[in-house]
């Protein structure tokens, strides 16, 4: 999930921080990189350690010193095939969006949900149709998934800066106002079509993936969590299945394993 990446960058140290060099380097690196994605690098989380610095240079016209720093940073960049846990953020007919709290661009396409999954129009949730039981992907529920592909979108993430107009919006004449609105619309459109720089495509087709609560064993007592209860009363079958135990689970595993075997044979 996380790994280390070594980078080299120039840092400027203002004169008033000369007695406090290391702390300034740390802060500058963190400010510059945290919460940003570098193509093929990943999402920077934090500075891990400083490996070394080069000589400090002073340029004419600038009182600060500039030095080259080599450091290691913690990045979030899961590898293909890695298993992660997160929660469901949004369910739509085409896909389900998952989140880790700090990273939201995780998508499961309908195709990659457990086989025989359907969309429930009234609940606006997906469910897995397993032995005539509707197992729901509950909103904000904890799910386990496998990374299929990591997609990098090498594009500008911000629209070009708008020229500053001297007149405020409420004093514009008709034509400038029209132009102004048009530009705002264009920008919104642009941002809407803009893809996030790192998108994870994940799947839940193997046994063990999907809602975590489906696979926890009843004996630990953990499985009896409240969030395991189906959200509505109409699915009484669910109750039996979810609270009922372990035998069912084992059957499920067997089923799934058979499924997997089928799949591999197909390949």
């Amino acid at each position, binding site marked *: 999930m996380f*790994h280390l990446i070594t*980078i080299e*960058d120039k840092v400027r140290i203002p004169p008033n921080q000369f007695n406090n060099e290391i702390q300034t380097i740390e802060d500058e690196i963190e400010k510059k990189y945290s919460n940003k994605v570098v193509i093929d*690098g990943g999402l920077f989380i*934090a500075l891990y350690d400083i490996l070394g610095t080069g000589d400090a240079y002073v340029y004419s016209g600038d009182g600060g010193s500039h030095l080259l720093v080599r450091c290691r940073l*913690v990045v979030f960049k899961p590898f293909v095939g890695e298993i992660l846990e997160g929660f469901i953020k949004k369910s739509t007919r085409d896909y389900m969006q998952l989140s880790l709290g700090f990273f939201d661009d995780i998508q499961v396409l309908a195709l990659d949900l457990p086989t025989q999954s359907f969309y429930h129009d009234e609940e606006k949730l997906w469910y897995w149709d397993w032995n005539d039981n509707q197992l729901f992907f509950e909103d904000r529920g*904890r799910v386990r998934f496998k990374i299929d592909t990591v997609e990098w979108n090498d594009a500008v993430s911000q629209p070009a800066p708008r020229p500053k107009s001297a007149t405020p919006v409420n004093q514009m004449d008709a034509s400038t106002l029209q132009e102004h609105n048009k530009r705002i619309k264009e920008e919104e459109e642009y941002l809407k079509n803009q893809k996030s720089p790192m998108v994870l495509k994940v799947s839940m087709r193997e046994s*063990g993936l999907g809602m975590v609560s489906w696979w926890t*064993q009843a004996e*630990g007592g953990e499985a009896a969590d409240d969030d395991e209860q189906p959200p509505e009363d109409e699915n009484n079958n669910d109750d039996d299945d979810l609270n009922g135990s372990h035998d069912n689970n084992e059957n499920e595993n067997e089923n799934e394993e058979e499924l997997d075997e089928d799949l591999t044979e197909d390949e």
Partner: protein
Amino acid sequence: MKIISNKYDELITNYEVLNLLKHKRKIKGQALLNEFVSSVVGYLETTPAAKQTDEIVKETKELCKQNKLTKAETLQIINLAPTTEVEIHLIVEEAVERLDPVAFTDDVRFTMEKDLNLQTTTTTTTPPTENGNV
């Protein structure tokens, strides 16, 4: 900025990241940055990493080594702390041929829980591991 090395071999466990972030000095006047860091910590606290100690991680790593798991598999075992056999099958490829899944599940669970018991008797404050890369 120049990327010097960007390989998958410098993996780091959730536990180490959590420790690093917890002991981090907050930068003044950077509300967004601090919020981001706390959201990462918030996520990691929901994972098994929150309950782990240096000893647990080391022992689990040793256990995986004995079973000849790859680096990536070891990392996932530590991060996810699997308690069921299904999870082992998910993480370890061709688990049946390479190890005894039932025994291994028990071993992992035992390792994770043993230190939990220890923790209650001896309260140990663990410093952040600086060089404990997997």
